[in-house]
């Protein structure tokens, strides 16, 4: 099984998740539990940094779909950033840009959250 890691940093009220490695069916549960914990902690503003992510499967994509509504219902959001072209193509092909805000750089995503406040 390939490795998958989540490094978590904070920027004010915003949580930034740095994903590393392979996000597939085996590893998606750790991302699910991270989201569950953020919801419990009432951290609804989340930026996900894909810089070090090398692979994402449909199940991995499904995790974002499963949490986006809950975050938005709580006036938060999941914003995506720093995707490699390969990853972006997958998102793009499935139509994610329609639903998710996807930024080139992490700071753009954070700025967007702050602009709203």
């Amino acid at each position: 099984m390939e490795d998958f890691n989540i490094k978590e940093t904070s920027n004010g009220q915003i949580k930034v998740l740095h994903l590393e490695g392979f996000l597939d069916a085996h590893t998606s549960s750790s991302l699910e539990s991270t989201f569950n914990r953020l919801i419990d902690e009432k951290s609804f503003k989340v930026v996900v940094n894909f810089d070090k992510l090398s692979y994402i499967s449909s199940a991995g994509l499904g995790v974002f779909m499963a949490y986006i509504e809950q975050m938005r219902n709580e006036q938060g959001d999941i914003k995506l950033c720093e995707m490699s072209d390969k990853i972006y193509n997958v998102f793009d092909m499935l139509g994610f840009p329609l639903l998710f805000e996807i930024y080139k750089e992490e700071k753009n995503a954070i700025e967007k959250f702050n602009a709203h406040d």
Partner: protein
Amino acid sequence: MDNPDSSKKLLELNSLIEFSQLINSNLELEFILGNILLSIMGRMLITKGMVLIKTNSDKTKDCFKISSAKGITGTEINENIECAFPGEPVFKIEDIDEPHPVLKKNNFSIFFKIYFFNKLLGILCLGKKLNNRYPEKNEIIFIETLLNISSTTIENSLKFAEIKNLNKQLNEKITKLNSLFELGKVFSSNFQSIEETIKLLRYTLLGNYGIKDLIIFSKYRADNFYILSKNTSIEIPEEYISSLNEIRTRVFLKPEHKSNFLKFLFEKDFQLVIPVTNQRNEITSMACLGKKLNNTDYSDADIEFLESIINLSVLSVENSFLFKESIEKQALENELNIAREIQLALLPNSIPEINGYQVSAVNKPAMHVGGDYFDVLRLTDSKYALVIADVTGKGTPASLLMANVQSAVHSFLKFFEDEHFNLIDVTQKINEVIYSNTSSEKFITFFWGILDIEDGSFNYVNAGHNQPLLFRNNEIIYLEEGGLMIGIMESGFPYQSGKVSLNPGDVLVMYTDGVIEQNDTDQLEFGEERLISTVTNSINESTDIILNSILNCVENFGYGMKQFDDQTLIILKKY
């Protein structure tokens, strides 16, 4: 590859392959269903998904369990729902006559049946797509393909879960059987103390069910129940305990009980009262059990097991009681055996040879200590004392008194001086000694005589003893002169002595009542007549042979019966 359509197809194919590899690598239902949901949601931009797994095949309505859900809140995984779905393999929310609230609340809009061959395994429920539209036709085909790939794995994992559950139940049964076995083994050892047995029961109850509170009432060797063991601090009013007698069967405690005691137990968080019966079906104990740790009710299987171990424990406790009693009895028996040995040491271990005479004697004790005494003592070159006595009663008191007589006789004879010795006076003195040492209901039949081998005279006193028989030719002379048994009265009655001269061929037989009172199986006594005819038949033999023929006759007569009393004989014969 630049063609977006072909690369999309490739991605689709890739994810199908990845998916099929993935779900076949795992048999956990939760993992498999979670992946089906996330994969479809990820690909179709759907934010809500749920899988219902069918739990029964009721004719009217189908029952399902929510086995996996993603993107929805406030819905319990493992919740059971009932819902009738339309017959089509794919249908929409408006096709369902009465959609379950869970389906409406979460805006599920399209449903896919999951089949394994023709068997319905469950339903995949999906929310609408992001653009609020239903999936396209090719997307529906994709979902159906995915479900087809998954169905075998879902079926396998359901079976796997079922087997796992069966295994778990089996393991529970094995654990319980092992507990029973273990308890049985420990309990069957007699060296288990009552405290240890109950401690073991407590641990078993704690280990298997987390049952903390246990009170055991017992009626063993008592008219009423008493508390045998209690590990809670609750005080049980005395008047309640007697009401235990009314309980005949097991009781699940409820607040509505009429009995104050049962109500009381219920209020103290007890749940179950189990009576324990012995082999004669009498209730000897009562166990009151508190709640299980997980607060669930006792199931039939629980009760079956509990009754077994409680029965086992209580019987073991009763066995411990019995064992204790038998140990105490054995200790007493050991003491009696020691007393018997001491007593035997008081009897002569060899009989002196008497010139011109033959003497044989025997003491055949009944069980344990008894009260017979005999002696043959050399006093001077020509004088010998022959003593035979029988203390009334049996057991330790009789044997103590017998020891007393023996020491009195020996003391007085130690200072034997021919010219000053008066048999009547000494008999009276022995009477005084014994009288002062006993209560009046204890007494001794006592016969003794002094044989003078110079003139063949035998001077005797018979203090209430079975009259010795002197066989002379075809005649029998009873040696009856004497008086009262010794130990009854201190004084006020004079003893008398008798005197016979022994002729060659005379045989004197002294005996205790144990000889003639031996019963046969018809409760008939051996009696004096049989004794006389036995001696008469062997009158020309040696004293040893006469003695043995008496013993043999008595033994044959009493064949199959217990020897009830000591049997003592002295045979004296003059050449």
